[in-house]
């Protein structure tokens, strides 16, 4: 398991990147995908997921389309154009951060 305080702040990037790679996804699918990709190390609870999704939607980074599955409504989330470029930035930023951290935490012996 990866500690929650490490995940804090990267949750948004993870959601954005998944949408960028998979096109449209619905909430449950996202949590499952995260679990699968992280081989169970990251458990994205729906309590953390939906506030982030709605915030991204309100900020215009993602849009929704609905589909009926039997009686219930399923909401699919997709990146908008601005969301797509923003995702690239955030992912780049994140790798930059990881690289920097690696330098700091694992200094190569002189």
């Amino acid at each position: 398991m990866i500690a929650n305080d490490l995940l804090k702040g990267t949750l948004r990037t993870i959601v954005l990147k998944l949408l960028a790679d998979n096109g449209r996804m619905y909430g449950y699918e996202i949590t499952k995908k995260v679990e699968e990709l992280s081989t169970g190390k990251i458990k994205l609870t729906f309590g953390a997921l939906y506030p982030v999704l709605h915030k991204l939607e309100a900020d215009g980074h993602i849009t929704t389309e609905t589909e009926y599955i039997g009686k219930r409504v399923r909401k699919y989330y997709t990146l908008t154009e601005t969301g797509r470029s923003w995702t690239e930035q955030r992912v780049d930023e994140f790798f930059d951060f990881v690289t920097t951290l690696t330098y700091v935490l694992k200094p190569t012996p002189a």
Partner: protein
Amino acid sequence: MIAAAIDDNYGRIKVDLISRGLTCDRLIDDLLDHVCCMVEEDMNAGSDFDSSYDRVLESIGEKQLYEIQHQTLLLLDKKFQRMKNFTYLFGLSSALIAIVGAFFKKMHWPGAGILITVGIALVVLVFLPLYFIVNYREQTEKKNPIYAIVGYLTMALLLAAALFKIQHWPGAGHMIEIGLGFLIIGFIPLYVVNVFQRGGKEKISLPYVAMLLVGISIVMLFTNVNMSKYLLDTYMKESVSNEARVEATRERTAHLMEMFRDSAHADNLQTVTLIHEKARSLQIMIAEMQEGMIAHIKQPGVSIEQVRRIDNRGAGREAIVDTGSGGEFAQAAIGYREMLEEMINDPVTLSQIEDHLEFTGKVWPHEYGARDVANGPLMKNYYKLTDASKGIALSEYVTISYLLHH
């Protein structure tokens, strides 16, 4: 088969979710689908709908749905987010103003008082209310305004007390007492109860506790910086020695007056008696002010060496300034000096009188006027009074001795 079972129970699931506090349509769709997916997955493992659904509901818990909705709505509430950002920025900048002010004060630069006052006033009147409102609105469970109100009052009182203390405004002592009372019997118990009620879901926030401790330590510091122990002890020692000198001088003066009665200058006896009476009445005024200060700190009749709160800062204000006896005494002392000066023609003796009665001069009140008396600790005021008493006794002796020889 599974999909059909879920569809059959769709209405029931929706009612269950709504009964757990979900009211926002956009979230109901999301969470309904999510819960159905969870049930579906559980049923895929071979259970029937009812047992799967029970397990899923169990895992969600009673409060979580409402909490999600609350957090989502707050995140979407632009006004609230702006208010939150504004609050923290504001707190930071007002605290900075106060800290810069404290630094100015340390360096004795002008403007320190204004900076500290403005900084603390902004913290107390703007930042703290906003902070507790934001904090209160972010909570979903066990929402209790009493916690926010007591928290605000505690912090506000302690900070205001610190400000009053630095600025030497009256009432600081009471504010500190009430503030600490709030802290000890109000805020801390409520905080502990609050933490336990959340069942350790949230760790006791370290920054919060740290802030609390820093606050307490600051207030404690302010109450202790009154005056260093060493200085107070010095004033005490000097006071005692002044009082001894007054006593010795009085004996000598009494002896002089004996000689007067037997001398050829007996016709001057009336003048000498007048001087002696005036000096006596001034010294009685001094004794009354000293007793007044000691009575103010609720230890009437105790000698200065037994007084426990010699650093008290309210005593001088109350017993000397507020009653007007300080001003009365100064007036009477000036009259006494003028009377003596009229009787003496010799410049050397005159300058001796002037030295002894320096406290009646023009420079002295600037150095140690009513403002300083009001703000000074009891011991310092007491010392100044013994100094004046000594001056009166010596000038009396010098004058009578002059009159005897001329």
